């Protein structure tokens, strides 16, 4: 269980996150949904322990997060893998740090099996630069799940991919989470409403300037539906409309409020 209470952080006087408070149950797939600049990536970094909140607290299973969190592994949009190592070596490096007692052959076998799990069986000896963006993210996911971490944090992992690869990787992540049988919690940052509806069992909608939690929606029913069924399902469509409405309300509130227009900036 991840618990956040009154988490706030400011960068150079500008409030990036304003009193975020909610909890994520074990085994959940939480999608952090919001426009760019709403602080959803910052929030992910706070969960990972890569940033420290100015006030408020984050705890995982009752233990406060302080410094890079051992329970979490992260997949970023890019530069997750070290480009100077082959994909196999990347995974072996992570495994070696997590399980120092294992022999080199064991590490190699494990790394190979994780690459196979994400559909990259033959890519052990390939450098990230020689792989496509989709394959690189597959390898990054393989590395993140290879270490025994209960929480997987993903920061817009498919933001730079073409639609076909994105759909395939969404399926992969969804399957991996379903197969973990509630053992793994995923926190997934995205700005794509449909992606959040397809993947998340819970959806947290963030508003911008300052970043704050607008709504926390349950979407666990969607998990039983295939992609085609999901977007014809009345309940999902209703949720989609609701999230859009929350987005729009956040935007118009800002426009009617103290925001100024200057050469079209401000929207």
């Amino acid at each position, binding site marked *: 269980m991840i618990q956040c209470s009154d988490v706030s952080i400011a960068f150079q006087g500008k409030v990036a996150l304003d009193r975020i408070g909610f909890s994520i149950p074990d085994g959940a797939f939480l999608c952090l949904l919001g426009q760019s600049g709403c602080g959803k990536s910052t929030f992910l970094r706070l969960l990972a322990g890569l940033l420290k909140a100015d006030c408020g607290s984050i705890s995982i299973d009752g233990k406060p997060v302080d410094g890079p969190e051992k329970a979490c592994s992260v997949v970023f949009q890019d530069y997750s893998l070290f480009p100077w*190592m082959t994909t196999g070596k990347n995974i072996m490096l992570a495994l070696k*740090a997590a399980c120092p007692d294992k022999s080199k052959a064991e590490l190699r076998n494990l790394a190979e099996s994780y690459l196979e799990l994400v559909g990259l069986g033959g890519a052990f000896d390939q450098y990230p630069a020689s792989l*496509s963006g989709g394959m690189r993210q597959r390898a990054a996911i393989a590395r993140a799940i290879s270490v025994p971490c209960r929480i997987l944090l993903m920061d817009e992992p498919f933001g730079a991919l073409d639609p076909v690869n994105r759909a395939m990787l969404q399926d992969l992540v969804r399957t991996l989470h379903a197969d973990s049988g509630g053992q793994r919690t995923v926190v997934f940052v995205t700005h794509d409403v449909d992606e959040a509806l397809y993947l998340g069992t819970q959806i947290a909608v963030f508003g911008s300037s300052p970043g704050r939690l607008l709504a926390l929606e349950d979407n666990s029913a969607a998990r039983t539906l295939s992609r085609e069924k999901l977007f014809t399902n009345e309940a999902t469509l209703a949720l989609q409309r609701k999230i859009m409405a929350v987005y729009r309300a956040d935007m118009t509130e800002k426009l009617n409020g103290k925001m100024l227009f200057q050469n079209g900036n401000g929207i």
Partner: protein
Amino acid sequence: MKILLLIEFIGLTAAAAWKHDWFAAAAGTLLPAIALLRCLTVWGKARRTAIVDVTVVLESFLLAWQLATSNWPVLNRVLFPTPDAVLRLFFSELKDMAHGMLSSLYLLGTAYLLALVTAIPGGLLVGNSPRLRNAAEPFSKVLSAIPPIVYIPYAIALLPSFSAASIFVIWSGAFWPIFVSTIAGVVNIPETLLDSARMLHLGKKTFIFKVLLPGAMPSILTGASLGLVFSFLLLTAAELIGATEGLGWYVKNFSDFADYTRVIVGIIFIGIVITAIAAGFKRIEKRILRYKETAQ
């Protein structure tokens, strides 16, 4: 261009043969021959054109040199020996120069290796700590701008031997570019990559050798090649301190005796040595950075 090369080739060979300058004639023939062989083995039209262009320039230079010194000696005979004399001497001096090269390479190699093993760890350490980086910046800015030649009197006075003084001077020339570029390399490692490393909870040693060093490597190599150029420049200066052999000494010594044929021979030899070392460096660099190659 190819026709121009053919005309030059015939002209040069004929002019040299006329004066019985057989070495010059051989050079004028070998140059296009080597170019032709290279063209046959190299892939790509642009590279073949480049080879022909370079050969044309070299051949023109040789032809002009031959005509102005041997066939119609309009240039000062002491300052401008004939190509034939230079080439003849080049081969007979090869043994002496190779000996000098070893002495030079000892100084250069020692100083350069010292620069690598001091600048890279130092740069990694300083680059990885914002506090050290801020503290070191003014020093590296000022010190790296001072030509190391000015240290020569102190090096001679304080260090026990000529080679120690030379090594110090060469080291101080190679150190700064490597040091500064190592710091820059560390600073320019993408933040997400460092975050990734933090989340893997790597040990300190693993972090340095598997993340920090390879992450800074492209920049380190740029600095290292610059450092190599600087150390060549300083080698000559260093050999003025008190050397009795070496490539820089060879040129300096014979220019003192107004033996300009040997001076030119020495310059050509230095050029060949430097080119060979630089080419070797390039190969190593390419090998280290091969991970950057994208899929074809």
